[in-house]
């Protein structure tokens, strides 16, 4: 099951959830031609934001992706406060909620490296291309070598266009 960015932003933005889009979808919004199967966001861990996040996603039955059914996973503020990063399956698709990301830190630390964009009629924060490349590099995954090459090509061509 994939994740629709339009659904994610239609749910999170009107509910005033503070987040920064990273990962494959961020790459796509910068011009990457590669498809992705989930939406990755770094969310603010302020108390108010966690409350809004929990309320916003509750109707969509978030559950840990890949976990066997029936685990005592409760989508509530306590669960979010006690955890940090959540790879979720929801009724609208896959959503990765990251409280912190390797190479970028928390929402507050990543915010200066993001910019506001508009897509699907909603305005939200998108990590900038330079930081996105650094995040991918910091993740140190062999599968990211091709995407990093593409993102660097984008960086070069964006400057030259």
């Amino acid at each position, binding site marked *: 099951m*994939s994740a*629709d*960015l*339009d659904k994610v932003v239609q749910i999170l933005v009107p509910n005033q959830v*503070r987040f920064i889009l990273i990962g494959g*979808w961020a790459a*796509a*919004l*910068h*011009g*990457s*031609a590669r*498809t*992705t*199967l989930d939406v990755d966001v770094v969310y*603010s*861990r*302020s*108390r*108010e*934001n966690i409350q809004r996040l929990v309320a916003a996603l509750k109707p969509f039955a978030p559950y840990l992706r890949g976990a066997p059914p029936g685990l005592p996973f409760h989508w509530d503020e306590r669960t979010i406060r006690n955890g*940090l990063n959540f790879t979720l399956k929801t009724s609208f698709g896959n959503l990765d909620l990251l409280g*912190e990301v*390797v*190479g*970028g*830190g*928390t*929402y*507050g*630390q990543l*915010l200066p490296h993001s910019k506001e*964009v*508009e*897509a*699907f009629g909603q305005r939200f924060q*998108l990590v900038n*291309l*330079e*930081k996105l*490349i*650094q995040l991918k*590099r*910091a993740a140190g995954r062999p599968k990211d*070598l*091709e995407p*990093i*090459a*593409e*993102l*660097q*090509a*984008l*960086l*070069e*061509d*964006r400057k030259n*266009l």
Partner: protein
Amino acid sequence: METDRPSTADALHHDYVESAEALAPADAFDPVIEAYKKDVDRTLLWETLRMTVDERARNMQSAIRSLEKLRGLAARDTGKVRAQTEVPT
């Protein structure tokens, strides 16, 4: 008032993030990445670079939905073939 004040976790990770800030710049030369870069289809990138962020988002969304549809059809057809070739026991 809502703040994004550094939490204890933030403080504990301060050094770590400092080191993240010291990561190589995005356009740093890496021979491995350079090797991969040769295979990047730049014509596709020039097309997307001419689009707005919203157009890129809608384009990608449409591609993902088409892919999902194809996967669904493929799974259905695989199921049909299995059913047709199954030997009754």
